[in-house]
Structure formats: structure tokens, C-alpha cells
């Protein structure tokens, strides 16, 4: 047996699985996106009709805008918070591991459960947040958190950030561990204070961790639908209707498989484009620093 043939045999089971569960479904979704399929029965090819709808109807266009806002909030807040925790914990070896584990814990929970718990915390009447504001004498700030379009999107994003801040923090901590100790020492001997060491030495050397964190959180949130599905069902007034949720609803409430497929394909292309561009830009940034 030639080496090439043996290699092919090793890869065969995996390639078969990937073909059946990824390649074929993606091609099938592409095909369905040009039809008016409703899941059952016959359907016709309708050309680019579904795509025209995706790009012209404000409802679908808005879901892309909502998704981008959601991604932007999550990426910025989660990266900042994760970096802040990692930076202080890096300087506190005694409690580092304990805190890293504690922060990581929410990532073990499912979106469904996190969605339920946060919905209850934010519910207007017996919810924990409003009750807490009452307790602090801040009743003026009480709010129907998930009933207001602006706070709804922000708070769904916060629930997401809450889940994955520990993840981001752990990756930054791994990045800190890779910074050579003598570099730090040299800077200290040269009289650099903590602030200067952070900005001039640590931050540039954390560039690879930034790349990983930003890419993971971007791709992860672009696909998000579970938290809005549980917490707001896309409301109020479409304010938390992400593309993922829009697709799920187009599929299982409206049974418009063709249209849902078109949305999926557009989302897939956007995800791949963003991943590609981010990878290029962030790697370039790593080289420049």
C-alpha cells in the first residue's frame, strides 16, 4: 500500500462524517435558498427572490444590525473585563487559581439556564435587580429591563459576557504566563512603574491572546440565538432579534425553509468574512507590535 493511500484511509472516516454533516448540508442549504420550500411537499425554484428579500426587507436587515451591535457590546465589554481580571490576578499568585476557576464557572452552564436565571433577575416585579435597587434606596432607577429596547439588548449581551468573562480571563492569564520574567525584571530595574510596564510591555506581548479572544468571542456571538430566544424572544419590537433567532423563527414558526436557508447562507458568508478579515488584521497587528 502506498503512503498516500494509507493516509487517505486514515482520513476517510472523518471526511465521511464532515461530508455528511457539514459539506452536504451547506450545499443543500445553498440549493434550498433558491427555492420556496416550506419543509414539506413540492417547491419551486425562485431564483434570487429570497436573497432580494433578505437585503431589502427591513426586518431581515435589522436582524443583521442587531447582531452586529450585540457582537460589538460583547466583544468590547468581555475583552476589557477579562483583561482587567487577568491583569490583577496575574499580580496575585495566591488567589489566582481560585479566582480563575470561580470566574470560569458560568461557562459550564447552558445558555438555556443562564437565560432563565437572568430573565428572573431582570423581571420587573419580583426580580432580583429591581429588588436590589429598592433595597439601596435607588428605586428611581427601577426599570422594566427586558421591556425597553435599549436595555434589553445591552442586558442580553451582559448575560452573555457574564458567561464567558472567565474564559477570556483564562486565555489572557495564559498569555501573561508566556511573558518572560526577565523582561519584566529588566523594565523594573530601568525604573518603569506598574502602569508603564502594563502599557509598554505586557499589553504588546499579549497581542496573540487578544487575537484569540476577539476571534472566539466574535464568532461565538455572531451565531448566538439562545439567550434572546429564552430571555426576550427577540423583543421588544425586534430589539434583540439576532440573525440566529430570526432563522430559527423563520424555520419553525413560519416554515419558510427557502428563506431561512438564504439567511443562513448570508450569515455563514458574513461569519467567514469577519473571521478572515479579523485574522488578517489581528495577526498583522501582532507583527507590528
Amino acid at each position, binding site marked *: 500500500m502506498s503512503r498516500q493511500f494509507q493516509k487517505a484511509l486514515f482520513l476517510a472516516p472523518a471526511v465521511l462524517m464532515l461530508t455528511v454533516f457539514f459539506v452536504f448540508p451547506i450545499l443543500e442549504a445553498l440549493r434550498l435558498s433558491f427555492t420556496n420550500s416550506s419543509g414539506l411537499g413540492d417547491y419551486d425554484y425562485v431564483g434570487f427572490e429570497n436573497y432580494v428579500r433578505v437585503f431589502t426587507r427591513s426586518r431581515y436587515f435589522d436582524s443583521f444590525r442587531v447582531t452586529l451591535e450585540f457582537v460589538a457590546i460583547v466583544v468590547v465589554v468581555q475583552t476589557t473585563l477579562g483583561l482587567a481580571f487577568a491583569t490583577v490576578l496575574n499580580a496575585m499568585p495566591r488567589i489566582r487559581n481560585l479566582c480563575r476557576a470561580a470566574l470560569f*464557572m458560568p461557562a459550564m452552564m447552558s445558555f438555556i439556564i443562564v437565560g432563565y436565571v437572568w430573565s428572573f433577575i431582570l423581571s420587573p416585579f419580583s426580580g432580583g435587580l429591581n429588588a436590589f435597587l429598592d433595597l439601596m434606596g435607588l428605586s428611581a432607577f427601577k426599570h422594566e429591563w427586558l421591556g425597553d429596547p435599549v436595555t434589553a439588548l445591552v442586558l442580553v449581551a451582559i448575560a452573555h459576557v457574564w458567561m464567558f468573562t472567565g474564559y477570556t480571563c483564562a486565555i489572557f492569564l495564559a498569555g501573561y504566563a508566556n511573558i518572560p520574567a526577565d523582561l519584566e525584571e529588566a523594565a523594573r530595574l530601568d525604573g518603569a512603574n506598574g502602569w508603564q510596564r502594563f502599557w509598554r510591555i505586557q499589553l504588546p506581548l499579549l497581542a496573540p491572546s487578544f487575537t484569540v479572544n476577539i476571534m472566539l468571542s466574535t464568532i461565538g456571538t455572531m451565531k448566538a440565538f439562545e439567550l434572546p430566544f429564552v430571555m426576550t424572544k427577540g423583543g421588544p419590537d425586534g430589539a434583540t432579534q439576532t440573525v440566529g433567532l430570526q432563522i430559527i423563527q423563520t424555520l419553525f414558526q413560519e416554515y419558510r425553509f427557502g428563506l431561512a436557508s438564504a439567511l443562513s447562507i448570508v450569515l455563514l458568508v458574513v461569519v467567514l468574512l469577519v473571521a478572515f478579515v479579523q485574522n488578517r488584521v489581528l495577526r498583522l497587528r501582532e507583527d507590528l507590535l
Partner: protein
Amino acid sequence: MKISIRQTTRFLAHVLVLGLVAVMLLPVAYMLLMSFRNGQEVVNAPLALPEHWRFENYANAYEKMSYLRSILNSLGITIAVTIAVSFTGALAAYPLSRSKSRSTQIMISLLSLCLATPSFVTITPIYETFARIGLLDSYLGIILAFTALNLPLAVFFYTSFIRAIPKELEEAAELDGCSQFQIFWHVIRPLLGPATATLSLFVMLMVWNDFIYPLLLLTDDKKFTVMMSVYHFVGNHSLNPEELFPAAVLGSLPLLVLFIVFQRRIVNGITAGAVK
């Protein structure tokens, strides 16, 4: 005197950071404490601690969720998926870790594409295929789907692990006349234990928490995974605290316990995978 001031500041800084971390865990504490109260108590005093520890909330949720059954379903599916994905994944990872040829590059691009694909892109065609060949609402179907879903990660995971194994071992075996498969089976496979252990934790995390695949592919509540039982029990309409919180605790508890036990392995595994 100066040192003691510095030590005090340092101590206070530690306390502050611990306090902030504790704040991050408040929702978990909230979930635990609320799970022992009934609806009326929560309405009357939303933030009070439990007056009576109402374990009957748990008895009720346990029963109505068919908790034991769904735990066994999740566990069984996890084990089957781990076996399937570790075998297919390690097999594919072996040649990928030892060559940089064009076909390797293509395979790696394919795997990255699969990793980035949102599940709702592929879910309808999978659903239709399963409906056609009778795999809908079967353990085999959900096991195959989860195996495929975990496969790209598994291949990347094993590839980086096998790259770290010295080639000398294989070269010696090759001189002894072993075939590629014999080398894989007798030299590489026995070394993969730790990687498989970590991988099984990821598989468990996904099987336990993923929602969309079982939602679509399973309808028989006897085959429900834990998260499906939680969703089925709590529903999507009224949020009744005495049902919601015990179900949430029961749904998260096994993984939280697992996490506390294997905390280092899980966090290191995930960060190592991400940083490479």
C-alpha cells in the same frame, strides 16, 4: 512601618479582587438560594434568604423532569460520542500531524470551515436527511450528529497533541516492518489517554448544554437530554420560581461538580486549545 502599610494595601487589594469575583458569582448564589423558596415568598420578599428550606421543590422538579432518565441519556450519549469522536478524530489527526502537504492544508481549511459554521445552517438539511432515512428521534441519530459536531475540535486537539510526540518511536517501529496502521494502533494510540480524557470533558460540556440539536432531532421525551428536560419542564412562557430555579440547579449541578473536580484540567485544556 512602611512595609506594613504596603502589606496592608496588598491585603486590601486581594480582598477587593475576591469581592469582585464574588459579585460575578452572585447569579449562581441567587439561583441556589431561590431554588428553596416558593413563588409567594419570592413575590413578598424578592431578595430574602430561604425561611424554610423547601426541598419539595427539588422533589417535584426531579420527578417531573424525569431527571434520572435524562441524566442517563446525556451520560450515555456523551460516552458514545466520546468513543466515536476520539476514534475518528485521532485517526484523522495522525497523518495531519505528520505532513504539511497540500492535502493536509485542504483538510485543515475544511475543518476550520466546519468549526465556524453556525449549527442552524446545517440543521435543516440534517433534519430532512434524518427524516428520510429514519434516524429522527433515535439515539443513533443524535450520537452521529454530536460526533460530527465535535469532530473538527477533536481533530485539531489530537493533531497538536500528536505533533508533540517524538517521531523516533515511529521510525523504530517502521524499521521493524510495522504498517502505518500498526504504528498508529500500537505506538500512537496508547499515548493519547490524557488528550482523550480532556476531550471527553469538552464532549460532555457540549452534549450536556447544546440545545438546538436535541430540540430538533428528538421528540420522544424518554430520549431527552438534560437540557431538553429543563426546557420542557420550565417552558418558555411563565417563569415560576419554584419550578425554574430547582430545574436550573439540577440542570447545571452535574457539570458544576465535574468542573470543581477537574477545574485545572478543563481550564488548561480549553486555554491550551485556544492559544494553539
